[in-house]
Structures are given as C-alpha cells and as structure tokens.
C-alpha cells in the first residue's frame, strides 16, 4: 500500500502548469495527487493506490477552506510536524532510560501536600485537601525509600499563573532519580539525554535557539553560581552573608532591587538582570553548579563547603532546561527547611500547604544517598525543534482547552 494516500485537500490547482493536481495534507506530510476535477479544498480524500481515482470521502461543508479558526488549519500550520517529532523524541527518551536500567513509574497527580517552594502556586484538585502536583518529587522519593534505585517518570505538572514564552501552567516534566549515586551521574545523564533526543529528531546532536545552533554532544560549559554572579553581575555571593549585605552589593553593582528584602529575591534581581542575558549569550550549553544554601531547596550541603549545596541547573541558549539536586535525605533538616518555607510563604502572604508527612516518614525510615533531576520536556522540544514559543510544541495551549 505504499502508494495509498489519505488526508485533507488543502489546495487544488485548476489552471496553469499544475492544473489537475491537488495538495493533500496527510499524517506524514503534504502529498500532491491527480484529481478528476471534483475535489475542493477541505475535502477528506483517499487514494487506494497507484492508478486509482481520488475518492472524496467527506466533502467539506462550509466552503472557503481554510478558515483561520478550524482545528486543522491551526494545528496543521504550526504544530502537526512538531507533534510528530515530539512522538519520536519521547520514544528516544524512553530508550535512553531503558538502556540505563531505569524503571518507568507513575505517581499520583492529585496530592494532599503539594510542593512547598516559596514561589510556586499549586492548583486545587479533587476533594479538599487536594492539589495537582507542581512536581512529582515527593512521591518519587518515597519510592527510593521503598528500595527502588533507578526510576524515571514523564508526567504533567501544574503551576498556577505561569504562562509565557517558556512557561505553560500545565506542562510536561521528566524526573529521574539514582539511589546510591551522586550528582555527577545525573549530570552525565542530562547531557546524554539531550544529545540522544536531538539526534533522534534532527539526525545529529544539534539543537537551536533563535537562529543559533548548539552542539549538545560536545562537552557542556560548567560555571559556579559564585563565578557567574561575579563575572556577569559584578556581585560577590558567598551564601552565608545576611540579606542586607547582599542588597548593598547588588545595589553597588548598579542593579535595582525595588522593594526586595529577602535573600533569594535580592539574588534573583541581579540574576534576572545580568546573569540570564549572559547565559543566553553563551554559545555552548551551560551547567550552572554549586548553589548557595539559601537557594538550596531540597539539595544537600556540599561536604567541602557547607555554604553551598549540591545543585545544578542546565541552560541552552538561555533556556533553563533542568534542575538537579544531590538529594537532601536528612529528615530533621528536611523538616526544618519545610518549616522555613512555610514561614516564608506565610510572611509573603502566599497560600500555606500541609507538610508532606509521608515523605518525612520515608526520610525517617531512611533514603540511601541519592541524586535526581527535573527536566522540562516542552522546553527540550523547543530547543530540539527550534521553536521560540512553548505553544508551538504543545498539542493544545491553555487557551485552546
């Protein structure tokens, strides 16, 4: 059946050199076929095989195809090709984990204790108290305590009010964990995964942002947060200085901090203003490593410098792809950090969520030393396909639900 064609007529030529030909949009791309003069743009058509007549399966009813708001016109123009590539990428992604002896898991999307990170807002779901996950990390860590060693998950995550060129409030996350291993193994995974997915879709480990191409198969640039802040923002950051001291240094570098008083807010005023654009200008993928403790989240302290944590972020062309931790497994420190997060949320007038006591119980039971990472699949697809807006790689955006 290699000559069979089925799809939708998007154009019909009635005069000129191509008279008698119709352009048919199929699931595998556009194909030109002969017609006998009775097809219209918009018709669903089928050609059984070479030499057979083009059969009009369902005539288009409204005329004037394509109208700009038809489902097909919108999807086809921008995204159909990207969705096919996305399917290919997901198959490659699962292959990467299968080759490394990972088990794919699925944890609940509706939880009783969502992520406590100060700057995230969860979306309520199900019978109260219930929220959609902002990330599956609490549940996946419980699986590590239960004895699983290499696990990964691809799932939807939900974060209220996050919409932009690189943000969708409903997005696809890839998380994976390695028990009994450290952050170096995760770093190697991230670089290999991005290269492998790019190769599966583009034929080579090349991705693009804007019109710039990046070789993700070559070694990635590594820079510490302290060095990035020194080089690009002109600000010294140790991690143990009080917030007012950091504020003075940031202002002295000529950066406006508005009314920010919290350590992390002051830090990010400088980061967004100076480091983000510099990361975007780097011509290689970047691993931003060794984060200061106030930005430690769920990462453990570094053995050789307690002012820093084991954490890295991966950037390509300024797009933040992934965030990784050497996982904090100490139940007492974890509880203290959760309490701090809750206090900070209360102070800033943000919604306060329950503590995940099941995670804390799992940590008390004991987690082996572990490392893990969360990677934005939609953003990965953006760089693999060279899309400049996240909506180009989504099946439907929030406005199209």
């Amino acid at each position, binding site marked *: 059946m290699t000559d069979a064609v089925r799809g939708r007529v998007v154009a019909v030529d009635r005069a000129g050199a191509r008279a008698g030909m119709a352009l048919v949009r199929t699931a595998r791309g556009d194909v030109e076929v002969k017609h006998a003069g009775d097809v219209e743009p918009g018709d669903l058509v089928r050609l059984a095989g070479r030499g057979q007549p083009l059969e009009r399966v369902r005539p288009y009813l409204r005329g004037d195809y394509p109208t700009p708001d038809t489902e097909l016109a919108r999807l086809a123009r921008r995204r159909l090709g990207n969705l096919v590539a996305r399917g290919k990428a997901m198959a490659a992604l699962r292959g990467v984990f299968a080759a490394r002896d990972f088990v794919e898991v699925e944890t609940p999307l509706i939880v009783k204790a969502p992520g406590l990170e100060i700057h995230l807002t969860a979306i309520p779901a199900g019978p109260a108290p219930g929220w959609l996950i902002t990330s599956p990390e609490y549940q996946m860590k419980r699986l590590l305590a239960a004895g699983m060693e290499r696990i990964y998950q691809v799932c939807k995550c939900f974060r209220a009010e996050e919409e932009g060129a690189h943000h969708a409030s409903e997005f696809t996350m890839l998380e994976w964990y390695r028990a009994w291993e450290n952050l170096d193994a995760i770093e190697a995974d991230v670089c290999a995964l991005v290269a492998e997915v790019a190769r599966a879709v583009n034929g080579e480990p090349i991705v693009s942002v804007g019109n710039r191409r990046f070789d993700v198969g070559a070694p990635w640039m590594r820079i510490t947060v302290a060095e990035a802040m020194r080089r690009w923002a002109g600000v010294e950051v140790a991690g143990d200085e009080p917030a007012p001291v950091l504020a003075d240094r940031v202002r002295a570098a000529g950066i*406006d901090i508005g009314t920010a008083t919290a350590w992390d807010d002051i830090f*990010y005023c400088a980061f*967004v*203003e100076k480091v983000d654009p510099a990361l975007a200008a780097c011509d290689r993928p970047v691993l931003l490593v060794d984060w200061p403790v106030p930005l430690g989240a769920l990462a453990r302290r570094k053995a050789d410098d307690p002012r820093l944590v084991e954490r890295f972020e991966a950037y390509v062309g300024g797009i933040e792809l992934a965030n990784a931790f050497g996982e904090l497994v100490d139940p007492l420190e974890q509880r203290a950090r959760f309490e701090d997060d809750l206090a900070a949320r209360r102070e800033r007038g943000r919604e306060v969520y329950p503590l995940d006591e099941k995670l804390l119980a799992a940590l008390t039971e004991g987690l082996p030393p572990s490392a893990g990472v969360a990677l934005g699949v939609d953003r990965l697809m953006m760089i693999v396909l060279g899309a400049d807006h996240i909506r180009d790689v989504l099946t439907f955006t929030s406005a199209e639900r």
Partner: protein
Amino acid sequence: MYDTSDIRKGLKVLMDGNPFTIVEFQFVKPGKGAAFTRTKFKNLLTGAVVERNIRSGEKLEPANVEERSMQFLYKEGEDLVFMDESSFEQVSVRAEMVGENADLMKDNLPCQVLFFNDRPVDVSLPTFVLLEITASEPGVRGDTSGNVTKPATVETGATIHVPIFLKIGDLIKIDTRTHSYVERINKS
C-alpha cells in the same frame, strides 16, 4: 497601584516622575525564584525606551495621562491651538512639541493630544496626511535612472522631496513618521 498581573501593552505608569507606556513584556521565572516581568517602557515625553524587570509583588504607580482627540485650529505665534472634538474646549500647545511635523499641520487636522497631569505634553499626527503641492520647479528630463526627486513646497509650508514628474496642484500623501513623500493621490 498596579501589580505585575496588570501589566499589558499600553498601560500608562509613572516612574521617576515621568509618564511611561508599556510597549513590550515577557514573563520570566527562574526555576526556584520569584516571577519577574521583563518589561519595556517608553517615556511618553522623550520617546526613550527603557527595560526594567518587575518582580512579582512590586507595585507600579499609574500615570495620570489621557489621550484626547483634538482638531488643529490655527497657529498663533509659536503656539498651535487645538479644539477638543467632544467638549469644544480649546488648548494652546507650543509648536516645538510637535517637532518637525509642525509644518505638515493643516487647519482641521484631527490629532491625538496627550495630557499628563492635565497639561498637554505631546501631539501625535495621523500617520499620513494629504497635502497639495503649491510650489515646485518643473522636472528636467535627463538622469532617469534610480529615484530622481526634486524639492516641492506643500500648502502648509513644508518642503518635501517628491518624484520629478509631480507638478503644482498635485495632491500627495506624506508619512508623518518620516516626514516624507509616499505617493500621489488622484483627485476625484
């Protein structure tokens, strides 16, 4: 006061005592940090564009600016007199506020006058105005390669470079953004 969720194109805000309009904005959010809106503001008095990152939680002060549709009436010394199309109120504006376009203003031209704290601070002309050529040397045949132009004076006194084939009495369309000739209009 506005917060970052109010940010949209065209929002008028006051910063450092100057009125600005938002021309572009982008949502940015570091993985573990606060959300920012990378925002481009245009100074309504000078036209200068500045970029600022507004952290979620910061406030923006609304600017007391208002754009009113007004008709140009006449010149009075160095002043231009406009009339509000709905209230018929008249205001005088210094000609320098209009800049080089002052010589494109014909009586009854509909304009947008921007008021800041109830004082007129800026005048925008329509993008295109139609004016008649009142003086111009006849075109000389000769070099016809490329875009050959000649100066012509229009009814409001402005000198505009026009194609060599145009003559006195022709009606032309002028782009007020560039103060230049666009095309000849057939009078009907």
